[in-house]
C-alpha cells in the first residue's frame, strides 16, 4: 500500500490544497453544535 494522495490535476498533495475546505467543514460543524446547544438551553 503505497499510494501518494495527490491532486490529479495539479500534483499537489491533497491535504495542502484542500486544507481550507476541511477547516471550513469543521468550523461549520462546530457552529452547528454550538447553535443547537444554544437553542436547547434557551428554550429548555
Amino acid at each position: 500500500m503505497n499510494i501518494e494522495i495527490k491532486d490529479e490535476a495539479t500534483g499537489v498533495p491533497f491535504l495542502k490544497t484542500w486544507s481550507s475546505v476541511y477547516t471550513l467543514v469543521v468550523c461549520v460543524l462546530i457552529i452547528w453544535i454550538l447553535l443547537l446547544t444554544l437553542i436547547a438551553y434557551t428554550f429548555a
Partner: protein
Amino acid sequence: MNWTDYIVLISTLLAIASYGLWSSRKKRNLHEYLKGSSDTPWITIGLSVMATQASAITFLSTPGQGYEDGLGFVQNYFGAPIALIIISVVFLPYYRKLNVYTAYEFLGHRFDKKTSLLGATLFLIQRGLGAGITIYAPAIVLSTVMGWNLNTTIILSGLLVIVYTTIGGNEAVNVTQKYQFGIILLGMFAAFIIILKSMPSELSIHDTFALAGLFKKLDAVDYSVDIHKRYTVYSGILGGLFLALSYFGTDQSQVQRYLSGSSLRESRLGLMFNAIFKIPMQVFILGLGILIFIFYRFEKPPIYFNQPVWNQALAQDSTGHLKALDKSFTQAHTLETEQIKLWLKSRTAGDLQSEVQAKHSILEAHATTQTIRKEAAQALITTHIKGSSNDSDYVFVSFILSFLPHGLIGLLIAAFFAAALSSKAGELSALGTTTLIDLYRPLAKNLPSDKTSLLLAKLFTVIWGLVAIAFALFASLTENLIQAVNIVGSIFYGVVLGLFLVAFFIRSIQGTAVFWAAIISQTIIFYLYYTLSISYLWYNVIGCGLCVLLSLVLECILPKTNRPKETPS
C-alpha cells in the same frame, strides 16, 4: 387528492421515468451500467450522494421523528462531516487509482479473495435486510394515497423498482435523483410556509419556539455520558463518525455514486457538499416535523396518522372501542388547545404565575392525548391489520394530503414516490453489482463475457428485489423506518469499516488475520446486540475497534505466509 393532483402525479411520474430512461438510453455496456458514465459533475455527485442517503425514507420518516421526539435525532449526524473528510482524503484516492467497480474489490487487491468475499457478504446481508425496510417507503406513499392494503403496495412498488432498475441501471438513478430531491425540498419549504401562515395570529415566532421547548422538542443536544441513551453528543460524534465512515466509505450504494465522478476533484467536491449541508438539512426536516407538531396543537390531528389502516380497523370495530377512543381523543385535544390559548394569553399579559400554571396544565392535557394515542395504537395491534412500521412514518404524508393546496399535493406525492423508487433502485443496483463483481466473478470457473455479465447483473438485481419484497411482507418493524435502517446498518458497519481501516492503515496485517478477526468481531457484535441495551451507534465503534484489535492479535499469533500484496500506485 382531486383530479388536478392525479394529473400532476401521473404526468410528473411519467416525465421522471422517461427522462431517466432517455438519459441512459445509450448506456448498454457493463462498465456504464454498473458505474454510470464517468463524467458526472460534482454537483450531481453531491446531490446524488445526499439523495441516496437522505432518500424518501428521510423525507417520510424524519418529520415524524421530529414530531414525536424533537431535534435530538440530529446528533446522529454530528460525526458525518468528519467522516466525509476522512473518506475524501483516504478512501477516495485508493478507489479511484485502483479503478474498482465496488469497494470490496479493493479488499481483494489489498488482502485476498476470501476477505473480499467476506466484505461483500457482510454488505449484502446488511443491505439486503435494509432493502426490505426501505421498500416500505414507496409502499407507504402508495397505500396512503390510494388507501390500498400495505402488502399490495409493497408488491406493486417492489416490482416497479425492479423494472426501473434493470432497464435504466445506475445512470438513470443518478440523473433523476437530483430532480426528485429538488422537488421534495421545494415541497418541504412550501409546507413550512403554509404551516407558518396557518398558525394562529396571536402565536409569534418566539412563542412557537417557547411552545416547542415546553414539549421538549428543541432538546437537540444531550451532553450526558449515559451509553444507554440512544442519541447523545458523544454517541453522535463518535458513533456517528464510525457509522458515516462505513456508510459513505464502504457501502457500495454510496461508493457507486461518487466513483462516477469525472475526476477526484469532482468526487471530493460532491462529498464536501454533503459534509456542509447534511446537518442543516436534517435540522430543517426535523424542524418541519416540530412545526407540524405545533400546528396540530391548534388543529386536531388524526388519532392515528395511518388513516387507511385506522379506517379499515374502524369498519371492523364491532365493540365500538375505537370510536370511543377517537371521541376521548377529540375531547382531550380540545382541552389541550384551550390550555395553550390560556398560556398564550397569560404570556401576552405578562402574568408569570398564570403562565407557569398554564404550562403544567398543557403538559397534563398533552399526556392524556398521548396516552389515548398509545391506546389506539395498541388496540390496532389486536386487529391484526398490517400497519407498516410505526405511525410516525405517516405524519408528513398525512399532513400533505390534508393541508397542502391541490396540484402541489400531486407534485409532492409524485416526487416522494419517484424518490422512493429511485433510492430503492440505487440500492438494488448496488446489491446486483456487488453480487456479480464480488461473489459471482471470483467464484465462477470461467469469467463471463461483458454481455453475460450485464445480464447477470440485472438478474441479481431482480433476485435482490424479490428478496426485499419477501422480507417486507413477512417482517414486522417496531422502530420507525429511519431508525430501523440505521440500527440494521450499525450492527454490520463497524466490522466492515474495521476491514477497510486495517487495509488502509496497517500494512503489516495479512488477509487471514483480518478475515478471522472480522468473523469473530461480527459474532461478538451479534451477541452484544441481543444482550446489551446500549445506543445502537456504539456498535459501529465497538465492531470497528474489535476488528482492528483482533487483526493485530491474530497477525502475531498466526504463522506468517507471504508478504501483503502491494497495491499499484
